[in-house]
């Protein structure tokens, strides 16, 4: 566990994600929209990094660039030292969205199996074991509609982990869940992360969630998206609920909220100035 926090041991490894001077532009009806402008950051292997920022700051776009769904207009993205398409083909990347997006005509187990079938991954994880890991043992034969929203999202997590990817990209995975489920899911995710030690890039709107989960939080500015700040989360691991009562935790919340404030005033009235 302690080794994870020891930066020196990983210096020689390729970083899990390198984003170097990436710009992304989308055509819209009112001209070109610059979603990301010369953005750069690195995620170390095994690190849990959250991306936080106002809506429209290009967080999801960034995730899609890393997942090889979009291609940057300029700049370089590397995943485990590889171009994104090579990393995707080597099934190094797992992806999860705000909604579970399961196939409604397949059972829970078949949904997870599908990921293995499509990729043909040989070093994949056993789907039944994975469902046990996310606490769904006994529900393998159920269909998605028979599960609650939180359970469906855990199936989606099991599916994302099925190919045993090095990198897990999560786009507001708990954003559609109620507060209680959301906190439980965060606990789940942490305990699974502690067992598997994947690199996680986690997009969220929630400051407490980002602090509770991450090693590092990257604050993005919007329009165009640039990195405004990076905050190391100095909380010890393993983390449990109790950590949310500590001074460090509150201090981190304060710092992050301060970083988020100027361009995102309370309510949605007017601009930042």
């Amino acid at each position, binding site marked *: 566990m302690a080794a994870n926090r020891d930066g020196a041991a990983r210096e020689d490894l390729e970083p899990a994600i390198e984003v170097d001077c990436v710009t992304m532009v989308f055509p819209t009806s009112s001209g070109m929209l610059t979603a990301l402008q010369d953005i750069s950051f690195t995620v170390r292997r095994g690190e849990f990094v959250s991306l936080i920022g106002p809506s429209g700051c290009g967080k999801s776009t960034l995730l899609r660039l890393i*997942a090889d*769904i979009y291609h940057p207009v300029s700049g370089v993205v590397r995943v485990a030292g590889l171009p994104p398409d090579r990393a995707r083909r080597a*099934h190094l*990347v797992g*992806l999860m969205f705000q909604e579970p*997006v399961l*196939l409604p*005509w397949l059972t829970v187990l078949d949904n997870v199996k599908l990921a293995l079938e*499509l990729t043909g991954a040989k070093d994949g994880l056993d789907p039944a074991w994975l469902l046990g890991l996310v606490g769904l043992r006994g529900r393998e034969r159920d269909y998605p*509609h028979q599960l609650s929203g939180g359970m469906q999202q855990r199936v989606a997590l099991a599916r994302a982990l099925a190919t045993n990817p090095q990198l897990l990209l999560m786009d507001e995975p708990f954003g559609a869940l109620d507060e209680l489920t959301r906190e439980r899911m965060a606990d789940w995710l942490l305990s699974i992360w502690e067992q598997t030690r994947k690199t996680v890039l986690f997009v969220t709107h929630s400051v407490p969630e980002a602090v509770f989960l991450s090693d590092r939080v990257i604050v993005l500015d919007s329009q165009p998206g640039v990195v405004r700040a990076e905050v190391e989360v100095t909380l010890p691991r393993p983390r449990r609920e109790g950590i949310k009562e500590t001074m460090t935790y509150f201090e981190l919340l304060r710092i992050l909220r301060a970083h988020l404030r100027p361009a995102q005033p309370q309510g949605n009235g007017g601009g930042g100035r």
Partner: protein
Amino acid sequence: MVVVAGFLAAWEILQRLTGYPPRFVAPLPSEVAVFTVNRWQFFIQHLAITLAEAGMGFLLGNLLAVGLAVASVYSRTVEQVLMPFAVAVRSVPLIAITPVLIFLLGLGWESKVAVAVIVCFFPTLVNMTVGLRTVDHRLLELMHVLNASWWQVLVRVRFPSSWPAFFAAVKIAVPSSILGAAVAEWVNASAGVGYLIIVSTYQFNTAQLYSTMFLITVVSAALYLFVLRLESWLLPWRRYLPENL
């Protein structure tokens, strides 16, 4: 079922009491029933011919429509060239296109099948094109990340998610294929339901006319109900889809 039986019983009683409409214009439901039962082999023969034409047209029309829908999802050219053409053919009234097809394909079963094909083709084409396209874009992104080929996406995602749309089309296509075949027989045939209707009308054989009408309605309705059953049996997850078609 009960409603239909009640309606027929009411008709029988009212017609017996009031004497209207006269029996030579519209026979009593009981007379039609007796007529049908006595000559059931005769009716089955004609029904079988129409159903065979309709069935063949149904299969061929749907096959063509699904194929074209798949092509139009994956190829912009197919969509831009074939779709307007398909819609144009659709806009020609059925009774106008039927004689044309008879000229082209002759007086045999081919022209009847062709009309049924045309009638089935459009609902399926339109629904399947929409069904194959309206797949959650995040699901497609996920398939991309999972390295799925276009074939895997088609078979594992697009086809299953368009089943509800397909069934919606089939529900229209089943009765229309029978209608299409019957209309073609109407124009020119020596057997089948459409032929029976024409002949009965000319011969003023009202009992036979009503029998035919009743039988073809029952068969159409039965097939429609069968499709409904098939859908709820094959797609138990369908009603849980979030506002998806």
